[in-house]
């Protein structure tokens, strides 16, 4: 018993339900309207059956007047109540989705950066949108229909049972068949299809995307035909999987039909002898036989509801996974509570690391120490994948160090520090105006500030060419911005931020050499002209000649990457043959 309760409590839908902040009364109202709607249909069938049977006995017309009014009322009531039920249930669901979305946002925003940093790809967060919708749908498509079906079924069983208890029992059993077994089979069918098709589905998507993304190359290298045949093969697997599930789904559909028929035949078989025995009035026989015909509409929706529950449960568990990550990561934050060191005099200014090992989930990726003083630029170079971004994220406090400490202005870093800003390579461009995008850095950016900073990164020409200048709306996730413009816009935003230390990841990607060098120089200038400290991670070396320090990282197949050389570019080039050679290759022009 307790294990069942524990099992229910562990169900993702049950666990996520509190986040929907659903008010029980609203659900009850929706179920009540639904009950009135389908109850009207049952009532219409029962009263109409009584009316016609009684009328055939030619009683005084007045005796039928209540029944005729009731039939007409039920006829109108059904449509109206159904309309109100749909509105009420959608309102409940939409309120739930709003709360869930807000709570998710709050949890993700409040939690330490780890969860977000690990969910680095935007599409994972984007999926949150559809997942929330799927969880909300469970209210409209499953919870309320199930409540309505249960109430209406009881009503029908009650009506029939009052006149002939045995027929009531038969009806109840048939309703359980259609509303219990059939939905279970439908959910089972969905599970079978999904299980059988998941590999084929992933393969199909991979093949399709591969073909569409490489349409040109596949045609030129002659592999188009075999690749199309491969797609057709995967599609056949998918069809076979769907067919497998359909076997069970078809049984569920047949059960629904058979249940109605059985209830009617059962009522006839029990009712006729009862009439003969005098325990059932002839007029009541009509009610007992014809009411079941209208009683199955509610349970008819339940197979679809069962499938919806499955889908919603999956969505809920994905959302919970995201939330749990945030929760789990929380204690690590309190572990290294910010503590003031004895002095905060000017010698402590800067970002300083001690015996730092950076990595993910406790797995060391790179070990390197650096000191970033205001007014200085440090270049972090090394091949792609060596761990430059990981190191930056650790310096920014977005992920906790695997070992060692990061100090900012004399304080141990715990979580994000307001003076340290990491400018990620995949920074988000919001679907709003250019000016508002820049204001993400600082709320009080004026148009003049914006123009000035865009000029520094070389975007003046671009903005001037846009129809509405700074007020131009950028597409969702900057879809209307080219890769190079996007990079420069991200740098411009970073320059506007009040943060003292900027950690810039790959500013030169997607830019031609001249623009890349110019942008790198802007960053070096920025640090030299003021009291900002800047770390630039790049795999391009030109442009770093002005940097105060260059740290060259090298991968080590047996352990974390390490610092191969450090110093000014000239010094590194002098001491490290690899670096000198790479630099010469790049700058030979």
């Amino acid at each position, binding site marked *: 018993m307790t294990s069942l309760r524990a099992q229910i409590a562990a169900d993702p839908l049950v666990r996520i339900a509190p986040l929907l902040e659903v008010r029980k009364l609203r659900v009850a109202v929706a179920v009540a309207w639904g009950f009135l709607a389908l109850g009207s249909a049952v009532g*219409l069938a029962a009263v109409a059956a009584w009316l016609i049977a009684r009328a055939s006995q*030619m009683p005084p017309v007045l005796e039928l007047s209540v029944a005729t009014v009731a039939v007409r009322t039920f006829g109108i009531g059904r449509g109206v109540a159904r309309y109100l039920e749909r509105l009420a249930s959608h309102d409940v669901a939409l309120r739930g989705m709003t709360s869930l979305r807000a709570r998710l946002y709050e949890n993700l925003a409040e939690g330490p950066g780890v969860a977000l940093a690990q969910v680095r790809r935007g599409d994972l967060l984007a999926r949150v949108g559809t997942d929330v919708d799927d969880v909300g749908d469970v209210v409209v498509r499953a919870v309320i229909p199930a409540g309505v079906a249960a109430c209406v079924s009881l009503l029908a069983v009650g009506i029939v049972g009052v006149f002939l208890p045995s027929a009531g029992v038969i009806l109840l059993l048939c309703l359980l068949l259609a509303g219990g077994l059939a939905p279970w089979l439908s959910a089972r069918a969905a599970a079978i299809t999904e299980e059988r098709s998941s590999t084929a589905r992933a393969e199909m998507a991979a093949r399709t995307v591969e073909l569409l*993304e490489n349409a040109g190359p596949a045609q030129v290298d002659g592999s188009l035909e075999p690749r199309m045949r491969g797609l057709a093969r995967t599609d056949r697997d998918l069809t076979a999987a769907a067919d497998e599930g359909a076997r069970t789904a078809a049984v569920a559909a047949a059960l629904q039909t058979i249940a109605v028929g059985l209830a009617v035949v059962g009522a006839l078989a029990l009712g006729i002898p009862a009439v003969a025995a005098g325990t059932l009035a002839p007029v009541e026989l009509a009610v007992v036989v014809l009411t079941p015909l209208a009683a199955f509409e509610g349970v008819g929706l339940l197979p679809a509801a069962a499938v919806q529950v499955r889908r919603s449960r999956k969505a809920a568990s994905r959302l919970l996974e995201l939330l749990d990550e945030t929760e789990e990561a929380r204690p690590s934050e309190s572990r290294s509570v910010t503590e003031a060191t004895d002095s905060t005099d000017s010698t402590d200014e800067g970002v300083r690391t001690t015996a730092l090992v950076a990595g993910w989930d406790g797995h060391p990726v790179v070990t390197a120490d650096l000191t970033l003083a205001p007014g200085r630029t440090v270049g972090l170079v090394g091949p792609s994948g060596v761990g430059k971004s990981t190191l930056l994220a650790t310096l920014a406090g977005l992920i906790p160090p695997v070992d060692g400490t990061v100090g900012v202005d004399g304080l141990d870093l715990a979580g994000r520090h307001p003076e340290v800003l990491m400018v990620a390579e995949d920074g988000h461009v919001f679907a709003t105006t250019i000016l508002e995008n820049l204001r993400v850095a600082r709320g009080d950016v004026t148009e003049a500030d914006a123009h000035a900073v865009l000029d520094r990164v070389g975007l003046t020409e671009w903005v001037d060419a846009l129809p509405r200048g700074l007020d131009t709306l950028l597409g969702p996730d900057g879809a209307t911005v080219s890769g190079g413009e996007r990079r420069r816009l991200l740098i411009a935003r970073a320059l506007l931020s009040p943060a003292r230390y900027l950690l810039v990841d790959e500013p030169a990607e997607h830019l031609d050499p001249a623009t890349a060098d110019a942008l790198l120089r802007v960053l070096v200038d920025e640090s030299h002209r003021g009291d900002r400290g800047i770390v630039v991670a790049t795999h391009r070396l030109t442009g770093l000649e002005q940097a105060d320090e260059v740290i060259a990282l090298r991968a080590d197949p047996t352990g974390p990457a390490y610092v191969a050389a450090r110093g000014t570019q000239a010094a590194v080039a002098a001491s490290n043959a690899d670096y000198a050679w790479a630099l010469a290759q790049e700058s030979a022009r």
Partner: protein
Amino acid sequence: MKPLDPRLLRHARAARGYVVLTAVFGVLTAALVVAQALLIAAVLAPAIQGDLTTLGAAGTSVGLLVLVVALRSAASWAQERFAVRAAARTIAELRESVVAHAVRLGPRRLAGGEGADVATLTTRGLDALEPYFVRYLPQLLLAVTVTPATLLVVLGLDWVSAAVIAGTIPLVPIFMILVGQMTAGTSERRLVVVQQLGNQVLDLLTGLPTLRAYGRERGPRARVRALGDANRRATMGTLRIAFLSGMVLELLTTLAVALVAVGIGLRLVHGDGITLEAGLAVLILAPEVYLPLRQVGAQFHASTDGLAAADRAFAVLDEPVPPRGTTPAPDLRGAIIRFDGLTVRAGDRATDAPAGLDAQVTCDGRVVALVGPSGSGKSTTALTMLGLLPADAGAVTVTGAGSDGPVDVSDLEPESWWRQITWLPQRPLVGPGTILDIARGATDASDDDVAEAACATGLDAVVRDLPDGWTSAVGRAGAGLSVGQRQRLALTAALLDRSTPLVVLDEPTAHLDARGEEGVLAALATLREQGRTVVVIAHRTAVVALADDVVHVSAKAHA
């Protein structure tokens, strides 16, 4: 949008058979529905009137009733079974045709958002056809079989009830159209608002890492809730209107059944020309007349998504494919490829890139570098030369050694042209397969040859770092390898497959550090030694320095 799009039947063979089958089931179901109603009435009426005292006396009718119930269940079983299969087959057929067609439409159509749209449509969007096939289409066919059949039987039993029903049925579409017209503009406007609000919330969620980096994540919290509430209000506004048509449908149909029942009752009590048996049969049949109509209404939503997806698929399929050339390509060895004022408009920008490119590539074993700033049209030039993209002005022509004259590449029979070219785009297409198999390709290169080529391109270093070495599996679209590693692998394959006289390389050094670049330079030199002509798009000075010819590509903004 038509409820049953004829294009669906034209494009998907599986859909045709399914529609025929469903129509047959529709006729069968109609017969069974009528039989069931008549049998129940035939047993029930005498029982009520006291003419039937034992179940045995109605044995035949009850037996037939059981048979009808069994047959109806069998029909539902079969309908569901075949519907799912037909849906899966139709989706697959459409997917394959759309992909094949999109590929033929060329890279420009697939560039940018449109390619992603086609990918979403073919991998997920078309799945919306399943509810259309499984839920909506059967009801649609029942509406044209069961509805008229039951109505005819009602007419035979009691013309007054038939008149009531026949009078209300036309009201259903009339009212739905009226409500639809009244609300169409409003709900479309509101739908746009709903979508915008939804996108804004998503935008905030997707941008959360960035907001966090700036310490601005707390600001939009209230905004997420406010947007959600605004979204709910806007959605409820749409639904209040959208559900109206559903209410009209339910109201009309249920009220009509009620009126039929009351009418029968009042005529029975007056002994007015209707028997109890007929009355009961009509009472059972009346809801059945409307049931398919109501189901069509209820499943309408399922149908719109599916039909919209199909519509997008047809939009792709109906797009004319540029005609394929038929002139066999001349032998490229010693041929001359000329660019005469080649101009291609750059997507949505008011820019020509390249703009008026004049150049010549002589295929006699030389390295030609295409240089120019980002966005000047270097890759576009290569695509045009390959015949994958049409020129907007000017032309790319090829003149074979000893042939009569220049042929425009768009007139060349593509396979004969492509057979002579190896093309490495910025993200080369490799895999699936093992590294060794991919490098070797269709050639009979020995292990030593492969090792030598790998050494030149730097693939050997990649292989050394992989746990399974040469037998490491590469996934679809090169999964498991970085872009730089894929480039080295593709370059190695290009070195080994000497059958193509022309090799086109698009920024082979883009994702490489200086060491990796050295490998590319070595490979270029080897290709030249093999007597093959190389057209290379380059940013790096070292590559340009190695080239025999340098072609400057430039863009020009429209005035």
